[in-house]
């Protein structure tokens, strides 16, 4: 057994929640630039340039990229050889979020109850997904997810007979309906298979894969490309003002499922795609 003190997890979550909100991945910055080059609409181009300027200013001033600094979605892959010491895992993660959102001057966007809606004041609790995996490491991934794009997501229980065409129609329809709301250009995470809840989690995990990186299975890699092309023919464009860049990428993740089922979930991610990972 390897002992890991949970304070290390608190520190990592704190650092990553601050860093993720002020620094985009190199893949994202490169995609902004490449799409600004080829965007057909002048307005769309100028928006993609604003995104680049915004990222630069955020890096220089430490101001968050977006005022919606999100709900902290934390994925932990916990090695089964690890013995956590010094406290509770969930509380350690929440303490990291609490400190990161306070010290980073990030917005507190969480209400304690969905209907009575009182702000918790410290952006906790985080949404925590834990998987137990082989090994003696703790891998932590944090995605700070804004409400605007999360609200445009959806799930549908298709019939097996709907097949791949049904999946394509649903994904494209979701993006079309979302229109300008989720701050396009977006990244579209698609979870296919599993059960109701597995499809939803897959669609969010799909968003963690670097931009431009295709699914390892050529069948799904081709599906991602086809969906991206269809979506970019919708004409929605940057901020929905018209243009050829509606989405930067489409990511598909799949899971075995029941003979009667074909769940498909679409998690929409705005252009401000903020996530980081680390290993302890």
């Amino acid at each position: 057994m390897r002992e890991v003190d949970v304070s290390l997890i608190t520190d990592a979550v704190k650092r990553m929640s601050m860093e993720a909100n002020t620094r985009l991945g190199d893949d994202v910055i490169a995609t902004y630039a490449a799409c600004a080059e080829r965007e057909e609409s002048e307005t769309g181009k100028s928006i993609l340039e604003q995104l680049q300027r915004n990222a630069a200013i955020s890096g220089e001033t430490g101001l968050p990229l977006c005022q919606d600094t999100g709900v902290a979605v934390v994925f932990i892959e916990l090695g089964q050889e690890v013995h956590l010491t010094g406290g509770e895992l969930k509380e350690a993660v929440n303490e990291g979020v609490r400190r990161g959102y306070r010290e980073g001057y990030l917005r507190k966007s969480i209400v304690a109850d969905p209907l009575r809606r009182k702000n918790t004041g410290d952006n906790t609790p985080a949404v925590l997904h834990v998987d137990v995996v082989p090994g003696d490491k703790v891998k932590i991934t944090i995605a700070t997810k804004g409400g605007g794009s999360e609200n445009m997501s959806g799930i549908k229980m298709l019939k097996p007979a709907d097949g791949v065409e049904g999946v394509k129609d649903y994904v494209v329809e979701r993006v079309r309906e979302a229109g300008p709301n989720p701050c396009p250009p977006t990244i579209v995470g698609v979870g296919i298979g599993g059960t109701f809840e597995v499809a939803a989690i897959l669609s969010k995990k799909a968003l963690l894969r670097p931009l431009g990186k295709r699914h390892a299975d050529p069948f799904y890699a081709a599906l991602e490309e086809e969906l991206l092309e269809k979506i970019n023919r919708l004409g929605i464009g940057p901020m929905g003002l018209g243009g050829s860049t509606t989405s930067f990428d489409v990511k598909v993740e799949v899971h075995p499922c029941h003979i009667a089922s074909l769940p498909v979930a679409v998690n929409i991610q705005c252009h401000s795609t903020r996530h980081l990972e680390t290993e302890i």
Partner: protein
Amino acid sequence: MSDAIRLTTPLTDADVEKLKIGDRVILSGVLYTARDAAHARLVDLIEKGEELPFDPQGQVIYFVGPTPPPPGRVIGSAGPTTSYRMDSYSPILISKGLKGMIGKGKRSKEVVESMKEHKAVYFGATGGTGALISGCIKEAEVIAYEDLGPEAIRKLVVEDFPLIVVNDAHGGDLYEKGRALYAK
């Protein structure tokens, strides 16, 4: 792209009427911030016939919930939030003289109709560029509902805030027009 139009708040009917969808506007002056929670309280006051924390006549509301200001700054990151959540509240404010709204995303038919009827305009700001927009905000002061935190009503003074007219007072909709132009 055509030249940008410079405007200063408060806006008059004449200011609003000359704006057309797709116009780029550089806005300066006072703005009031409000998101859904603050809108609910404003509309509640109007329904009870009570006084509002600010007179909406000629004013512009910016749909934003900023991040806290770090030391040395008047405000943190401050980009637009999605506007449809304010759709059920906007028409009554427009009927009380509100001339402009700044946000991102589609508005309902009812909002578009009330903008036509009472002469108001909906501007789009670029979502997700809160650090960039923060630089246009010169002053910020909470004037009501401090308990709502990021959702409190703030009076902002802005300089050269870059916007685009998404819905004008003539019923136009840039989202529809823009999409139709580039759909293949």
